[in-house]
């Protein structure tokens, strides 16, 4: 019986020949990811259920990447990182990326593949809904809560329902002004915030093959914004090469059978796409950027797992080079590697750091989640009062970036940069 890539990975992890959608199976987990927001609670569940002296099922498979509340004076936030630190020591965990040390990385979803923990054909669970990002490299990767994560920590297993697959066939010549973010916002706009609930979202097609790994991650990252269980892209040569540059560990890439059946196919031709935004307060509120040019903004934000990668900053720099921003513009690289890239990457002999400084952006913050989820009061870029925000992040729920009264528009780095210049929502083609 033929299977999709998602079904194949689950079948392999369940030790069965074949699985089908809606079947419940116990599967073996390859990587458990947690961070400072959900790690302490996960550890609490693990100890409560398995005992104070219990050991994690496999110390090489537990990856702890603190990233959410790092640059804050909030005492509980520090206490939580201490809890992780103590646990990593007690369990002798090799993959704890400790803030304040050379091993600190930044946002977990960017650090996980960068450090070689994402491998095709494997099963990743993380205590963060955007764990779906890692499907961009051909893994089955999904977000779970603390209780399930505590269970995985003790047993290395989880009971899951096999998702149906929605397949998005994305073809056509992609114009320069169209980014991964424009593609996924368009899809979520079409299917809605619950359009993929319980389903795997598989992305394929010529356009996807030509995209960078980072742009593929932007797309898979937002599968959860349509309710998806996982986002996934079959690992092509580009993906395999990327993985091999990050890890020497063996892996077995899996692929959909050519004749596999899926719940539904969606066909897109990106040559007709236009730069877009998602209006407050849902990621599904799609609108072409050019049709909202009357919306004034006060605050521009470039950062997060989905919008703070080096490729995102390069896109923003292309627009900002030689221009001045007219609103407060906050830049938060996702990881330390991205922050270094801002210094080493250049456009026409100018580093990105110089381009951003000359454009009048606020000094670049150290890598973390920062205001993507609001965070403690002293978080960099946290929204205030009723300012209007345009952001490369992935959620625009009420209060998501801090203030309940500050509406958030989601957009690509190109659109955010163009809007930062004019102070109004702006189609980036005006600057290209």
């Amino acid at each position, binding site marked *: 019986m033929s299977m999709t890539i998602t079904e194949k990975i689950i079948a392999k992890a369940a030790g069965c020949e074949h699985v089908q959608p809606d079947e419940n199976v116990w599967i073996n987990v390859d990587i458990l990811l947690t961070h400072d927001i959900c790690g302490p609670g996960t*550890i609490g569940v693990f100890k409560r259920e398995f005992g104070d002296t219990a050991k994690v099922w496999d110390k090489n498979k537990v990856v702890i990447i603190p990233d959410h509340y790092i640059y804050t004076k909030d005492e509980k936030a520090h206490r939580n990182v201490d809890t992780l630190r103590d646990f990593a020591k007690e369990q002798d965990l090799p993959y704890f990326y400790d803030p304040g040390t050379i091993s600190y990385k930044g946002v977990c979803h960017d650090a996980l593949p960068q450090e070689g923990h994402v491998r095709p054909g494997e099963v990743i669970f993380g*205590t963060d809904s955007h764990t779906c990002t890692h499907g961009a490299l051909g893994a089955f990767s999904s977000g779970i809560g603390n209780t399930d994560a505590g269970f995985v920590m003790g047993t290395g297993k989880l009971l899951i329902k096999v998702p149906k697959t929605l397949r998005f066939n994305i073809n056509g010549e992609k114009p320069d002004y169209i980014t991964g973010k424009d593609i996924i916002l368009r899809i979520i706009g079409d299917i809605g915030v619950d359009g993929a609930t319980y389903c795997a979202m598989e992305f394929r097609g010529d356009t996807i093959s030509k995209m960078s790994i980072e742009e593929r991650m932007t797309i898979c990252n937002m599968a959860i914004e349509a309710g998806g269980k996982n986002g996934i892209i079959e690992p092509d040569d580009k993906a395999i090469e990327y993985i091999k540059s990050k890890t020497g560990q063996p892996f077995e890439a899996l692929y959909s059978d050519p004749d596999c059946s899926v719940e539904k196919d969606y066909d897109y031709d990106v040559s007709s796409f236009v730069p877009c935004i998602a209006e407050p307060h849902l990621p599904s509120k799609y609108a072409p950027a050019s049709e909202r040019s009357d919306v004034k903004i006060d605050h521009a934000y470039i950062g997060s797992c989905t919008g703070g990668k080096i490729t995102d900053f390069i896109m923003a720099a292309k627009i900002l080079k030689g221009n001045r921003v007219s609103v407060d513009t906050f830049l938060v690289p996702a990881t330390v590697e991205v922050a270094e890239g801002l210094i080493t990457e250049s456009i026409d002999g100018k580093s990105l750091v110089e381009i951003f400084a000359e454009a009048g952006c606020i000094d670049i913050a150290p890598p973390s989640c920062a205001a993507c989820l609001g965070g403690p009061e002293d978080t960099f870029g946290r929204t205030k009062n009723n300012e209007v925000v345009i952001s490369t992040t992935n959620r625009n729920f009420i209060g998501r970036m801090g203030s309940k009264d500050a509406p958030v528009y989601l957009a690509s780095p190109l659109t955010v940069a163009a809007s930062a210049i004019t102070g109004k929502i702006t189609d980036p083609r005006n600057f290209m």
Partner: protein
Amino acid sequence: MSKIKKITGKVYVLEDNIDTDLIIPAIYLNLVPTIPEEYDKLGSYALSGLPENFDDFIAKGETKSEFTIIIAGRNFGCGSSREHAPICLGAAGTIAIVAESYARIFFRNSVATGEVYPLESTERLRDKFQNGDLAEIDMDNATITKTDTNETFQLKSLGAVAPVIEAGGIFEYARKEGMIT
């Protein structure tokens, strides 16, 4: 969440797409649910992300809610995987949610923790109830009855998760199944 037959109490009514930032704003995510005082604190902030024009879910000066049943529209609990969301509702005193549909992770977290019963309605009940109405849920027959009019509405059966709910969460279920000791 042990086996329970009837849930009675006041209802609180919500819209479609109630996201986890509305249920528990990120500023409170520094609280760790497995620490008892912080569990109670999380409860006191339940649904505090709702805009000001909503009725208080927790009365001023109180730490628990008078509403034991939440009735909502589609896609309840969308957004983050934060388990703080079902936990804060459970800690506030909510016993059951009756929504038209759930976001997957919220539903799963409700079942795994045993904090609240995530029940599904077969029709749009958010238009049939108002804040403060009394209701009774009959778990055996999968129905909810509006006390003052005696109208009864059918709920969906719990399906494949029923054994996990009946066991009291993922750990108890796994113990029953002999997966863990």
